[in-house]
């Protein structure tokens, strides 16, 4: 089962390698990893999607918590999170099918951010599942390149990772 883990860490060099090293060393599989600075510039937030059993997820949480650089950690339940991933996809597009692709992008709330004689680059920010779906639809036109950021997530409602329960 896929689980999304949000981690607040010290914004120091070397922190990311400590976290990714822990995953490889303990044979945890990372589906995606995204990192960026937070509202407090001394902290970064890492969002990791892991695929594994409840046992694995519990171990991931506990082992991450042991790292001194990890300030706070929370596994977001699937039904209480808002998640997004940014994707740039370069599709083969000529005069004959440009219109189709523009329509697809429009339906999927995506943006055309670059266009050439032979290609179009689409920018989409959506859940992982919707992006996968969009790729399937675009595949027949010829996908030249896909760049994805990995999932970021927050919980629904007014609570934050810092809210004490």
């Amino acid at each position: 089962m896929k689980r999304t883990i949000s981690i607040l860490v010290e914004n120091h060099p070397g922190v990311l390698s400590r976290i990714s090293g822990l995953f490889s060393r303990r044979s945890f599989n990372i589906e995606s990893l995204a990192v960026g600075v937070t509202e407090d510039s001394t902290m970064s937030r890492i969002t990791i999607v892991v695929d594994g059993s409840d046992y694995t997820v519990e171990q991931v949480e506990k082992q991450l918590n042991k790292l001194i650089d990890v300030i706070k950690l929370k596994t977001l339940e699937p039904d209480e999170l808002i998640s997004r991933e940014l994707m740039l996809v370069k599709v083969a597009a000529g005069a004959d099918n440009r219109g189709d692709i523009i329509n697809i992008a429009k339906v999927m709330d995506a943006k055309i951010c670059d266009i050439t004689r032979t290609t179009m680059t689409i920018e989409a920010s959506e859940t992982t599942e919707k992006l996968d779906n969009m790729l399937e639809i675009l595949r027949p036109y010829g996908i030249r390149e896909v760049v994805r950021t990995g999932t970021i997530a927050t919980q629904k409602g007014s609570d934050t990772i810092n809210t004490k329960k």
Partner: protein
Amino acid sequence: MKAAQAMTECLKREGVKDIFGYPGAAICPFYDALVGSGIRHILVREEQNAAHAASGYARVTGKPAVCVATSGPGATNLITGIATAYSDSVPMVAITGQVVSELLGRDVFQEADITGAVEPFVKHSYLVKNAEDIPRIFKEAFYIAGTGRPGPVLIDVPMDVQNKEIEFSYPESVSIRGYKPSVKGHPLQIKRVISAIKEAKKPIICAGGGLFATGAREELRRLAETCHIPVITTMMGIGAIPTAHPLHYGMLGTHGRRVANTAVNESDLLILIGARVGDRAVTAPGTLQQRTKIIHIDIDPAEIGKNMEAQIPLVGDARIILNQILDAFEGDSCGGHEEWIETLNALKAKEPVQESYPDGSINPKAFLRKLSAHTEEDCVVVADVGQNQIWTANYFEVKKGRLLTTGGMGTMGYSVGAAEGVKTALPDTQVIAVCGDGSFQMQMMELGTICQHHIPVKIIVMKNNRLGMVRELQKNMYHENYSGVDLTGSPDFVKIAQAYGIESMRISRAEEEEKAVQTLLQSAGPFLLECDVSPEESTL
């Protein structure tokens, strides 16, 4: 103040009196500041031993001990020692020199990314970029190493950083937002523990190394006696309760005592304290967790449920938790385990005592029993790794002292270095290293260290001209297809010791044991005793 001097000043503020190390160019500013600092430096003969010595020192003082090495190979040589300390949860601060900051990453002479390389084996590490951070980093390093589940912390200091001038002020306290180890046990869980103990008919306590880390031997004994609960130990937990205590039933696991393993398998309540359910201690945790109720007390939440599920998990410091449990039992005793204890006593009495003496060799098990009879109550024995470790674990009787060994990493070549550390910390205590001829040759160079620094440790080498444990494995599992286990070519250890000016002796007959043990224990300086052991001598 020069940053290098600030480093020695930090060590002094942390109460450090002795450090173990090996200098090199990149750590020279620190060594320069060491002169006249009042800190005693013990020059080991290879860096790994500096870490082992610090491990021995820390394990008997309960405080982080320090080892030092230079950049590159000096630092990488420390890694096995650091990894050993990490596996055994030993508080340690390792200081390494690093090439100058502006050359970092250019693969210059003696450059190694030591913070990267050691990452899997440290509790935390620092690469010091600003000299002004040195006091804070040292303060944090000692705090992290010594609190919670203890472990090694490495501080890597580039040479130019050591040479900077800084304003020195040592912080009073630390505040690390990502590090707040829990100490007290949750009251609700304590209540569950109490009722589980009261309900149990066949309870057993399994004591691990965590009890030493927090100094809870007395509490353990009181709990066992108050509630009449038999105690077994892991290898790291040996001596948590005196070996001869009537409620003690030995070490469990693949190399443990039969009575201890039977006790675990037949118990209806297993109370694990400061033990991590390692694969050598509990080979089939899956079966065990279905058979018996498990209480798991550990300061590291990640150990609970990692190898075995516990019905009652209890995170916190074992000493504090045991006191919480004892308080709850105040004035209340908890009997009803007489039948269970009698069963175990009968099993214990039935265990065979091997007293046979093959011709021309020493029976190491009988020898270790004899040694125990002559050692002082607080004697510290350090067992190496191999058959010698299991012989010592099962047959040396720990009274008020300690039996130190590496139960986690199982690093050959641990004993002499660790014994050096113990003897440096406790100069008035008997300190004995027991090793094999394989492991001794991994650390033979330390004879120089103990001579130079007058560290009178006693070394017992069980010599069978083989890597005995591997040989036994090949005998039993690989149809006697012996491969790479013959130590032909080893020198005469008695003469090697003599070459260092160390008193030494060789024995090969039971009649010689008594005198040898007395000579060893009464000698003023270091001593090496070689015991000739048959290659066919079994581990168990």
